[in-house]
């Protein structure tokens, strides 16, 4: 049974489905819910600073159901909304999204969708309700539902493209770096002569959904892409590869490309040349920071709060680059009981972190951080207060991240790894500088005191200085 949650961060299935459709160029979401359901997600994501897509926020068509629709049913309201959305809003695909109200009332969303599809209009729907799960669940199910029906909406003959790879598992918005990460995956695949079918962002669009069946394989980068990949396997014989996390180091990239090369034709020379170049890039930058690793003691006790995929990726990176001890991992997207997926990352997680927790409740997370005696927490802005209270440094890398604009920055691939590492070192150096300033001031105060009594009282003002200073935490590194 699910419990009460303090400071829940991930929204509901409708939110996940909505933000997924919004990020597909040419797709128009139509929310069949009360007026505010579609807005809440927009207001939440707006704080994160990814910008807003064309059909997000107040531009999103929605039935804005009223009391009469709850009492008498809202199917006819939905029918007129779909019909008029097509008349008013430019789009290549209209996706009807269900909600808690509609599910409780029992509106036949499917029938309304079929009715309009029979008229030749490009419309798909998903029947999941908000209370069915979180936004990761919504992402996975809406993609699954669209792929299930798109063949009947946008006809095209299957013609396998030996270079095309479907990318699943990067959840728009809920991975704060989703756009940059998709672009980095595209760069890696392009490096070995493959094309990434991204669905979202600059290089994605409705055509990617139509072409998904023509891919030579699908790659699922977290458990949250398994369902659509399986569907393509069952219906169109597109094989899929599940990997526990996005690649970070050159060795991860090699492992990924080797797996993909079992299905896609890759020129061995091109592959070796690209991977060698990636390795060189990584070696060059990581060798430049060797002094920092030792001088700033970067292998600190680390705890990670975020999606399972992020926990695995950041954990591996911290262990391999800095020799850090990952004393705990808090999975905020995972289900306590997952009956839908075959993916089981238990062993990988246990190899990455000493303790694994599944929760997104702030009180639980606070207790875990306190008990862990971590020096560094990689988490979200919601951990800021806890970090300050417990004198722990915070690196904000998981959702939500407040007061930072994140557009095309990436944390994936060797470039993302270097960016992540440089952010960490910057934060540590800033904290050290501030700590050093506090100590200088302290020394000055001591020298200017006339009596030991004065020393004692002044010392009380700066007694908070410790390994990872309070000031460092305040800067929320």
């Amino acid at each position, binding site marked *: 049974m699910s419990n009460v949650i303090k400071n829940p961060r991930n929204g509901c299935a409708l939110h996940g489905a909505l933000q997924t459709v919004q990020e597909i160029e040419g797709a128009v979401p139509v929310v069949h819910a009360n007026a505010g*359901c579609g*807005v809440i997600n927009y*207001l939440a994501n707006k704080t994160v600073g990814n910008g807003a897509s064309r*059909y997000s926020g107040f531009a999103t068509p929605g039935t804005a159901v*009223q009391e009469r*629709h709850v009492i008498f049913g809202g199917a006819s309201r939905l029918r007129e909304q779909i019909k008029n959305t097509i008349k008013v*809003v430019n789009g290549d695909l209209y996706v009807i999204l269900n909600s808690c109200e509609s599910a409780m009332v029992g509106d036949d969303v499917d029938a309304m969708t079929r009715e309009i599809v029979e008229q030749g209009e490009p419309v798909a729907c998903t029947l999941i309700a908000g*209370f069915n799960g979180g936004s990761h669940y919504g992402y996975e199910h809406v993609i699954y539902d669209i792929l299930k029906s798109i063949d009947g909406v946008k006809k095209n003959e299957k013609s396998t493209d030996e270079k095309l790879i479907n990318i699943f598992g990067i959840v728009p918005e809920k991975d704060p770096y989703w756009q940059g990460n998709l672009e980095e995956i595209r760069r890696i695949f392009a490096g070995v002569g493959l094309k990434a079918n991204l669905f979202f962002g600059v290089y994605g669009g409705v055509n990617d959904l139509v072409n998904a069946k023509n891919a030579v394989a699908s790659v699922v980068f977290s458990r949250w892409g398994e369902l659509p990949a399986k569907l393509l396997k069952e219906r169109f014989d597109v094989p899929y590869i599940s990997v526990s996390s996005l690649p970070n180091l050159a060795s991860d990239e090699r492992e990924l490309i080797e797996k993909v090369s079992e299905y896609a034709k890759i020129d061995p020379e091109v592959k070796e040349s690209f991977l060698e170049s990636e390795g060189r890039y990584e070696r060059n930058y990581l060798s430049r920071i060797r002094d920092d690793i030792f001088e700033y003691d970067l292998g600190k006790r680390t705890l990670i709060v975020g999606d399972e995929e992020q926990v695995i990726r950041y954990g591996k990176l911290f262990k391999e680059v800095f020799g850090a001890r990952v004393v705990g991992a808090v999975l905020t997207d995972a289900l306590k009981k997952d009956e839908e997926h075959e993916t089981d990352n238990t062993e990988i997680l246990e190899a990455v972190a000493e303790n694994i927790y599944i929760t997104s409740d702030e*009180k639980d997370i606070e207790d875990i951080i306190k008990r862990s005696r971590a020096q560094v927490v990689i988490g979200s802005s919601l951990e800021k207060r806890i970090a300050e209270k417990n004198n722990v440094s915070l690196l904000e890398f998981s959702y939500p991240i407040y007061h930072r604009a994140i557009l095309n920055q990436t944390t994936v691939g060797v470039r993302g790894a270097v960016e992540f590492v440089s952010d960490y070192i910057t934060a540590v150096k800033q904290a050290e500088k501030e700590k050093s300033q506090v100590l200088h001031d302290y020394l000055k105060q001591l020298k200017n005191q006339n009596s030991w009594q004065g020393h004692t009282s002044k010392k009380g003002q700066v007694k908070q200085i410790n390994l990872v200073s309070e000031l460092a935490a305040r800067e929320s590194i």
Partner: protein
Amino acid sequence: MSFLDERKALTREKRLSSLSHFHGTLEGLIDETSGAEIKQRIRTFSQVHVDETIYAFDVLSKIEDAAIIVNGSIGCAALGIGQDQEKDFSWFSTNLVERDTILGGDDKLREAILRANEEKHPKAIFIIGTPVVAINNDDINSVILELEDEIGIPIISIYTDGFKSKTPVTGYDIVTHSLLKYLIDKNVDLKDDYINVISFSENIEDVASIAGILHELNIKFQVLPRFSNVDEIRRASKARATVVLNPDEGDYLARELQEVYGVPYIESEAPIGFRGTKNFLQRLGIFLNIEEQVVKYIDEAEAKISEQFVSNILEDKRVFVDASLSKVYGYGRLLTNLGGQVVGFSSPFVDLENRKQLKRFDFLNKNAIAIIGNGQQFEKANELEKNGIDIYFSENVGNSFVTDEGAVVVSTRNRVTYGFEGVDVIIASVRRALRLKEKGTGGSSYKDSFKRRSGNWYVKQEVS
């Protein structure tokens, strides 16, 4: 007449016959609203918009020592993420799932109340209702009755449901109703020497601007319910008087404080622009018997503004104002004084209380565009290109559609627009916006065939 005898606040539609759709001219709108009741209309195409749950959560989240429980599915509680609050803000979700929609969520609500009390030690707990709970008809009151004595602080149900009103300010009314009924001190024998400044939606910049003026005039005040605490709300009934920053939102609370607790309501317009701020302060000065002091302060402010005021920066520019109806007057007048031609406005709703404001729109031609709609960007897009609008002055979030239609946005977000300080800031914002004119991205979201049609073809009259 007080509405406090009602168990729940009435919706704006029921209390003031509020209208949430109109698309026509100012003259038509005045005509439409001139009767004893305003006829409702129904859109057969709409876009998502804020509802009363969002507004209620927003204002309650700014009461510093209260706890908030969002009683609904996990997604409704994403409202808290949107608050982007300071470090001490936290909120709880009862996290209702499918099973709870069948068996009821009372146990979870009980657990949430106990946790909120234990972990936050609040002075009051607010329970925000959501669609799932409303449809399920969960018995929230019995849980409150059971726990209120046990934990010893007020547990207050906010009867929002997200689908009974098309006018989201109903959320403020619902909060007002609950605060008046369950929190505000009923013992009003002694009055104190401060005034209540009612704020529901103003940003911190605007509230600070007005607070700064009151401080300079040595007027003691407390702001509520936004940026307040539980004790300040309790004391609202002991104030000397009440002023309201946005009458569309705070009028209900001020009137009830006057009606039920005898706290005089100093009615005024929103303190926007030079004249708006002047009128606001003059009324306050008259009531508090500090007219001379206020006049002196205004004269000094006027002298400062006059030095920088350039009356022609909007010359030859066609301007559209998108704001709460009680603020359209202040913004519109200021933009007209800057040389602009205000050719239309849109507001989220109009109700019986707004009729007198509509008649004061002397800066507008009687054929000026009048759009009433909460959000509904497509209705505004329909008019922008058609009417060659240059400047879109907006207090709402998410206006990028405007640039697609060839206009440029002057936003009031994240800056001060109230008080004398606001005049300078608005002028600076207008200047910046003019530099961006002609830099629109193009590529409208809306079909040309739609934009050629009237803005009313998809609207039905409500059948009563």
